[in-house]
């Protein structure tokens, strides 16, 4: 066991998959020599050589598009979008190519590419470095979308993503990159994509979140607990596929639900979670299911961020309102 940040856990996972599968290649902007702007791939080029871990020119569509071709020759590319806000330059390759090669060729070719990208706010960064638009990938048929909230999950889910046969958009909550440490196993292990994690069992209300917002959700859950509210806290981890049965089971038990996420509200992931709640637990609901999300605005620059990212207090407030409903 070793105490690791999420950056270290991901680095560790990358090292493991690069070691166990010689077809794995890792590339993107500043991924090689520099080891990534967040140092996630630090040391890997030295260890595995420039043929397997390398820098690309500055062109996201080129990165995603070449990965499709590499995959056709049997390679297993892990690519990095330096920030999720720049992944849109590759959007047409992701939606029209990566997600469709298997279908288009009826299984003759596949593109099981892992697309890593830091996402979300909270690091006081310039425009385009703080947004949470995971819904744009979740809505694309043919992609899996994963967002871990702990070093442990980040490692296990990433290893599963790389071992799997499907394309995965792997979004990393950059404000959790170094803010928490966790004792995790240095050896390989994997966590199957598609399973939510019931972080804490409870009976009064289900609190659902993922990724960066789990930080506040955990705090809120603790505070609420102290106030006598028994919270069942679920980290969905996998945005697509969504573990609908775990959500349903929980809400059938608690009758109440709050989903919390960072990105915009309208047409956001919260809507899908609540629709799932209706599908799975309509007759059990004791209060209207509710979402607490970011505004339908641009993710603000650093000075506006405090308005945008919900505090644990706000979450507790909403939990209380729902329980008292």
């Amino acid at each position, binding site marked *: 066991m070793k105490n690791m940040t999420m950056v270290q856990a991901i680095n560790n996972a990358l090292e493991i998959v690069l070691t166990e599968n010689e077809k794995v*290649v890792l590339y993107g902007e500043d991924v090689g020599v520099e080891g990534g702007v967040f140092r996630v791939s630090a040391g890997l080029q030295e260890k595995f050589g420039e*043929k397997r871990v390398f820098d*690309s*020119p500055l*062109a996201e*569509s*080129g990165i*995603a*598009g*070449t*990965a*499709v*071709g*590499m*995959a*056709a*020759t*049997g*390679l297993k*590319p892990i690519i990095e979008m330096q920030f999720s806000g720049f992944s849109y330059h590759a959007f*047409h*390759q992701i939606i*029209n*190519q990566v997600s469709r*090669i*298997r*279908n*288009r*060729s*009826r*299984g*003759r*070719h*596949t593109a*099981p590419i892992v697309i890593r990208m830091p996402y979300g706010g909270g690091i006081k960064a310039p425009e385009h470095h703080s947004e949470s638009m995971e819904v744009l990938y979740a809505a694309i*048929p*043919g992609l*899996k979308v994963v967002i871990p909230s702990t070093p442990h999950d980040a490692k296990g889910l990433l290893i599963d993503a790389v071992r*799997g*046969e*499907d394309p995965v958009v792997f979004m990393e909550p950059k404000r959790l990159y170094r803010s928490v440490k966790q004792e995790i196993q240095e050896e390989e292990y994997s966590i199957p994509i*598609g399973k939510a994690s019931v972080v804490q069992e409870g009976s009064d209300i289900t609190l659902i979140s993922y990724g960066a917002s789990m930080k506040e959700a955990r705090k809120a859950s603790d505070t609420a607990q102290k106030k006598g509210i028994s919270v069942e806290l679920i980290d969905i981890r996998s945005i*697509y*596929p*969504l573990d*609908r*049965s775990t959500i349903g089971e929980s809400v059938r038990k608690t009758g109440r639900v709050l989903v919390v996420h960072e990105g915009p509200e309208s047409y956001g992931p919260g809507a899908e979670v609540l629709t799932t709640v209706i599908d799975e637990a309509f007759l059990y609901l004791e209060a209207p299911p509710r979402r607490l999300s970011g505004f339908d605005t641009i993710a603000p620059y650093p000075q506006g961020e405090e308005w945008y990212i919900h505090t644990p207090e706000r979450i507790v407030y909403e939990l209380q309102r729902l329980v008292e409903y």
Partner: protein
Amino acid sequence: MDIAAYDPLNETPYQILDAQGKVILDHWEQSLSDSELIEAFKNMLFVRQFDTMAISYQRQGRMYTYPPNLGQEALSVASGSVLQKTDWMVPSVREMGAWYMKGVSLKELFLYYRGHEIAQRFEQANRIMPITVPIASQIPHAAGVGYGIKFHGEKAVVLTFIGDGGTSEGDFHEALNFAAVWKVPLITVIQNNHYAISLPVHKQTASKTLAAKSLSYGMPGIRVDGNDYIAMHEVLSGSIDYARQGNGPVLIEALTYRRGAHTTSDDPKKYRTQEEEQEWEPKDPVNRLRSFLVHKNIWNPDEEAELIEGYRKEIDTQFLEAEQYPPHSLDDVFAYMFSELPPELEAQKQEYQDYLNATAQEPQK
């Protein structure tokens, strides 16, 4: 030929045969054998026959939209002929001769234009990617295939196609830059057929030649007469040698003319004159190679009718097979989304099946 020696800014294309099929170079040595040339000519006739029939099936309502190849056969047949089995091909949309020679069956092509997804398994063809409709998106794939070839230490090359219009897309630029930086064995053939749907190439770009775009990436570029089978073949062979020897990518601009409509839904009269179309008629690649072969006394045009009749039968047989292929089932809609059906898709399929059952419609496999 020494590809790297050519000037990509040279507007005069590399050419061997004039419009009458006469050799215009002074010291030219035929590199292809007579029988190879005859084979090539037959392939061009075959492609043209396929094209004619495809258009007519479409008119009969037995096929959906189809992009005619008329006038571009030299280019696609030459491309199909230069590849070895272990070489890769990454298609664009208008070079069916090349796909066919790579192993794609006519039945599959017909299935494709009949809107059946099974088509693109390309069951008998190896090392060919499926056709991708979004213009230029295939070029990054081809560059990635090139990286894969290098990675695996193979001596193969990858050949890809794009239209004149496609050169304006960002993907063209990004991919060729990657290919040159990574020095991968990629040959990109620009089919400059002078139009992107209605847009003439001189409104597509102000570049002197499309081959000149190679200078942006530091790779050899050459403009060739794409309607001249022999010139096209020489340029392709030279480029492939260059790439196969590890020198990196090459860009070929092949001049041609789309004699037909953009697709069967298009009407070129809206955007070009008949005079222009007529100007290109004498430059037709089939006539040109035929003249050469006839001059050489190795081809008797009188035999063509019978040949074509044979082609017609073969093509029609394959079309009928495609037409009789089982229709797309509900399963087919879901089957290739992921390696395994995720719960969402499982549920959606089941729900639909339940509906069909409930309403006593025939259950589907």
